[in-house]
Each structure stands twice: as structure tokens, then as C-alpha cells.
């Protein structure tokens, strides 16, 4: 079933004329004619959950905003930086007006008078398309009184975290804030703020068209609707696929994305971006339905809906090191457990790689991860600790084997290229030669 990807490659869809010809902007008009509470009611009835990572029900979150007059803000989170995720890029590039319509609908539901689209700086060409569409929509009087702008970031993963995004939008360094107060009460410029992901907002006009109750029938009971899943890594046909929530994960990886290359198998996969704990490629995990609750029960999360597949030819240590280095680079440095923990995890993984590690290191690493989780203002540290922890849990044997092998190789190297077998050399002599 395709809702968001329905004929999305229609030529010229990014222009107002083509979008209107397929009934676009009608839903915004219908929503504006309704009372805000009724629009909010439809969103709540749909049960649509946030597509950005946390999976919080959109209608419920919008309901937290205080009612009545006053400056309220709607922020669209288009800072899609989660490794493996690229759904918003495709959606915004091909159907920018659907996002703008969604913003108008959602802004009316919560009575917001300012709306900002915070798009990551790297998506410059997508932002150009959005800017052009916004100009078109403003000229046609579709945005109304709403003060709506596209705001470009400048490259920081942490700005995808909602409170860091708000700081960045206020023109500061993107450091997360303490919660509570939640943004719904005190957000942008200390005003009530609703923050939603691009895909969530794009669902709003679709919900208005179908009716909330009808939309809720798609998918499973607690994960309604469709989801764009970004499949990447070791698969034959990487890309964005729209699936109904609850589709078995195996179907997405094998039937849609073509499965891993010939001669290899799925070793493990990240079910929801690099922040989600990995799941091994066994039947038990491949048959898990792809929805919010089932993945949580399986010990992972749906996150941003990005499946990164790793096949059997790749050492788990390489992936762990890449993941940890990414979070070390992107940690904003505000909270000590995250800033130091990510750094030490990278150092310990490098020790394992170069053969300097002892078997104790894996346990120390696990304890470092334990000390990060839940001890910071935001979940960036947790987002590193969880996948690394799950890799150690599922592939401990491989880590240990690598440790032994690297240790042996390191010893061989220190004995020089022409060294014979152990019994024919004088270890003490060699060692002193090295020191001199």
C-alpha cells in the first residue's frame, strides 16, 4: 500500500500546478474550515506515531500544547542525520508541497502562528526545492497568516535531537536542554512548540483525506499507517520502500531490497538506524513484524525506520568501530558520560583491533556503556551504547577471537619479519633489540 509514495515520480510534482491537479492543498482548505479541536481529534484518532525516532503518538503530543491565544511554534524536524536514514530527503525533494500542506494542517490544529522547517545544511539542493515551493505557496495565498520559513543548519547530528534543534534554531550551539519542561510547554523562544518529523507531518493531509478512523485501520493496532523504510548496506537493491507497518522484516530485506549479495547471508542488521540495538540475522529475528512494539519486544527499536544490513563477510568489529567513531565525533560535549564514554569506547575498540586488549576489556566496555545509558540530557550517548552493547552481547565470541588473533599478530610483528618459530628465537634478546 502506497500513501506517501503514491505516484511520487510524476513529472513536475514539485510545482504547485501539478500538485493541485491531483487534489493537493484541498485538505489544508478543509482543515482550515474546521475547528482546531476537530482537526486535532482526527490526528488523535489516526493513532499515527512519530516517524523521527521516538515513536510518540503525534496527536497526543499536539494535545500537550496549551490551548488559546499567544505565540505558538511548529517546527518541522528535517535534520535527517541518523546514519542509514534517507527517507525525508526523497520525500521533500519529490513532494515538497505535501510537507507544506501538512505543516498548515498541523499548525491549524495547535493554533501555531510560526512554523520553521529546520533542514540539515548538507541537503542544500532539497532546501532550494522547498524554498521555491514555499514561495509558490505564499504567492498563491495558501500559507495564510503563518510565518513559515526554511531554516538551514550547518552540519551537526545532534541538531536532530529536539531540544538541541531548538537551541540551534535560536542561533546558538546545538546543545540539548534539560527536560522537563518539554518543548510542548517551553520550547522555541520559551514558547509552546510542537516538533514533528517530516514524514509525520506529511501524513497529516493524508489523514485528513482518509479520516482518522479509516487511517487507523492500516497497519497494526498500535502502529498505524505506512512507513518509508530506508534499506541500505549489504543488500542488492538499496533504497526507500513504503511498507505497511507490521510487514515481516524478512520481506523488507529479501523481497523488496533483494537480500545480501550472492554467497553471503545476513549477519546482523540495525532495524532503526545506527542508534538501534542490532539484531542477528537468524530466523527468530528476521520474522519479527516491522512495527514499533514488536521490535521493542525483540530487544531493539524501529527508530527512524532505517535498516542497515551487514552480511557475513564483514567483521563485526569494523562496524562497531565505525559506529563508535561516529558518535564520538558527534557528541556535543555537554554531558560528561557521553563525551568521555564515546571516546573511551573508541579507544577500547581500537585496542581490540590492534591486539593490545585483554579479555577484561569487553566487560569494561559493557560497564562504560551501562554508565552512559540514562545519565545524560539527551540520548546520543545511549544511541552509541545500545548498538555497541548489543554487538558485544550477540557476537562476543567473534570479538574474543579477533582479540586473540590480533594479539598473536602483534607479537609476531614485534619479533620482526624474518623471525622463525617461537623456540628458535631468544625472546629477551629480541625485546631488548626492539627497545634499542
Amino acid at each position, binding site marked *: 500500500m502506497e500513501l506517501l509514495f503514491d505516484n511520487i*515520480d510524476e513529472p513536475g510534482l514539485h510545482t504547485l500546478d501539478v500538485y493541485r491537479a491531483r487534489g493537493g492543498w484541498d485538505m489544508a482548505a478543509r482543515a482550515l474550515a474546521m475547528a482546531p479541536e476537530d482537526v486535532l481529534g482526527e490526528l488523535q484518532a489516526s493513532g499515527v506515531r512519530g516517524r523521527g525516532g521516538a515513536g510518540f503518538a503525534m496527536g497526543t503530543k499536539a494535545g500537550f500544547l496549551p490551548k488559546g491565544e499567544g505565540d505558538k511554534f511548529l517546527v518541522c524536524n528535517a535534520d535527517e542525520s541518523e546514519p542509514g536514514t534517507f527517507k525525508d530527503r526523497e520525500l521533500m525533494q519529490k513532494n515538497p508541497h505535501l510537507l507544506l500542506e501538512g505543516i498548515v494542517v498541523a499548525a491549524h490544529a495547535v493554533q501555531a502562528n510560526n512554523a520553521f522547517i529546520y533542514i540539515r545544511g*548538507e541537503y542544500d539542493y532539497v532546501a532550494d526545492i522547498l524554498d*521555491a515551493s514555499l*514561495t509558490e505557496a505564499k504567492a498563491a495565498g495558501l500559507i495564510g497568516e503563518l510565518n513559515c520559513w526554511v531554516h*538551514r543548519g550547518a*552540519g*551537526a547530528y545532534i541538531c536532530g535531537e529536539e531540544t538541541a534543534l531548538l537551541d540551534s534554531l535560536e542561533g546558538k550551539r546545538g546543545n540539548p536542554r534539560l527536560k522537563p519542561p518539554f518543548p510542548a510547554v517551553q520550547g522555541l523562544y520559551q514558547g509552546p512548540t510542537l516538533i514533528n518529523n517530516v514524514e509525520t507531518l506529511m501524513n497529516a493531509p493524508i489523514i485528513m483525506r482518509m479520516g482518522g478512523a479509516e487511517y487507523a485501520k492500516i497497519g497494526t493496532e498500535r502502529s498505524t499507517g505506512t512507513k518509508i523504510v530506508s534499506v541500505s*548496506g549489504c543488500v542488492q537493491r*538499496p533504497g526507500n*520502500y513504503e511498507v505497511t507497518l507490521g510487514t515481516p522484516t524478512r520481506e523488507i530485506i529479501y523481497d523488496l531490497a533483494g537480500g545480501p549479495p550472492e554467497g553471503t547471508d545476513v549477519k546482523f542488521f540495525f532495524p532503526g538506524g545506527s542508534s538501534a540495538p542490532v539484531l542477528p540475522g537468524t530466523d527468530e529475528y528476521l520474522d519479527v513484524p516491522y512495527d514499533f512494539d514488536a521490535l521493542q519486544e525483540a530487544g531493539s527499536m524501529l527508530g527512524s525506520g532505517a535498516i542497515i544490513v551487514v552480511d557475513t563477510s564483514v567483521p563485526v568489529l569494523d562496524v562497531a568501530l565505525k559506529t563508535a567513531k561516529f558518535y564520538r565525533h558527534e557528541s556535543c560535549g555537554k554531558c560528561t558520560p557521553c563525551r568521555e564514554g564515546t571516546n573511551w569506547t573508541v579507544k577500547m575498540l581500537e585496542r581490540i583491533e590492534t591486539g593490545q586488549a585483554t579479555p577484561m576489556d569487553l566487560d569494561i566496555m559493557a560497564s562504560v556503556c551501562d554508565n552512559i545509558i540514562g545519565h545524560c540530557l539527551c540520548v546520543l550517548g545511549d544511541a552509541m551504547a545500545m548498538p555497541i552493547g548489543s554487538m558485544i552481547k550477540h557476537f562476543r565470541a567473534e570479538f574474543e577471537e579477533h582479540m586473540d588473533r590480533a594479539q598473536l599478530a602483534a607479537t609476531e610483528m614485534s619479533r620482526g619479519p624474518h623471525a622463525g618459530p617461537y623456540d628458535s628465537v631468544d625472546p629477551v634478546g629480541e625485546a631488548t633489540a626492539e627497545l634499542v
Partner: protein
Amino acid sequence: MSLSEPDVDRGGRAQGRLAALVRRYEHGSRVPGWDEAADLDKDPAVVPDPATTPVPEGLSGLFEDYMGRYPDRRSASIPCLRAAQRHHGWLSPTAIEQVAASMALTPGYLIAVATFYDMFEHAPVGPHTIYVCTNISCSLRGADKLYEAMLDAAGDDIAFNIRSFECLGACDIAPMASVNGVYVGPMTLEEAPTLVKQLRDGAEPLPDKQLRRRPIARTWWASGERPTGEPAGGRGAEGQTAANNEGEE
């Protein structure tokens, strides 16, 4: 203080040559060391006087436009810094001063903001910026080798600013690169020299590999031949962006 040897450890080799034009302190870094006493007699830099800080015509108009968009003008600091960087090539002290004067903020505040974000350049760089994604998905498909190949292809040409970057959000075309903001991929190692040549000649980078021309995955993989027609939502937008003052370079 004297100019020192180019540093090759800061990403691109060519970048190092340009960066060397910025003075170094005696301990080798371009910023004062943590143990170096601050000059306590010197006042911190204040907001530059707009009367004595000339701002180029086009740039000041942009700054005004950005500041007018938000309830608090300070929100415009990132857009303004971006505009200044585009105009000057990097965030030179002059660039920072111009933004500071226009926004009535101290240079220190702006530098603190700018150093947080990856896309701001704090040393002179060449006009061609190439980000090679070396994150998980891309590296599973050989991005690290591609990064090396790009560095080799550019050699010591100071026109190229080649950086390895975190996930650029285009894992479907891994391994990929963002060439002056244009996403191209999946790139082969042989295409690295081609790309460098195209940029030197002023041609479009790898036209048949641009992401904008790709339909959604289901269509793309179902069709045997690779469509290379008009990019979806691409070309038409460029002319109209002038109104928003964020057109392409």
C-alpha cells in the same frame, strides 16, 4: 610567529597547503594553548562598529532578510554565517566581523557558534568542496577506498577541499559524495579522476550518477535501463530560489 610547513593531517592534502597560510603559534596550533596566559590587559572584542565595518552590498541585504524572518534576530546567525562563508570562501576574520557588525553580536559569540558546526571552514579552502561519506552504510560499500581515491585524484591541487564526512543521507547510492552540494553515486574508484577533471573543466559532475535523476527504489530497480531524464524536482526550482536569496553558487 612564522609560517610553517603545510599540515597534511587535516583531511585533504591540498587543504593543508591553504591552511598553512594562516599563522601558527609556536606550539604548532593555530589557537592559543590552554596553558598560555590570556592577555588580561586586552579587552574582549566588542561588537564591531557598523559605521567602520563595510559589508558588501549583496551580503548586507541577505543579512537583513534573514534577521527579519525570526522573532529573535539572533536566530539568523547560522544563515548569516553561511552566506558570509559563501561570499568569502571561508569564515575569515573579516567575514565574522561583517556578520557581527550587521547582527550586533560579538565576534566571540559567532566564532563559538561556527566552531560547533561541521560545514563551516575556519581556514582558507579551495572553491570545490567535496564531502565523501564514510559512515556505516557507505563504508560497507567501499567508501573508505573512494575517499583515498579522491584524495589521490586531486593530488596537491589547492582548488579541491576533500573531506570525509558523516552520513550525508544518501545510503541508497552508496558509496557517494556531495560535490559542491550535488549528490552523486554510486561512485566507482575509476570515477574519482573523472570527477576531478570535470570540475576542473567546469562541467557538471557525473551527470548520469546524480541522485536528483533517480526515481524511487521500486521503479529504479524494476526498469532495466537507467532513466537519465530531467531530475525530479530539480532544474525548475533553481530560477525561483533567487527570491529566497539561497540560490546555488
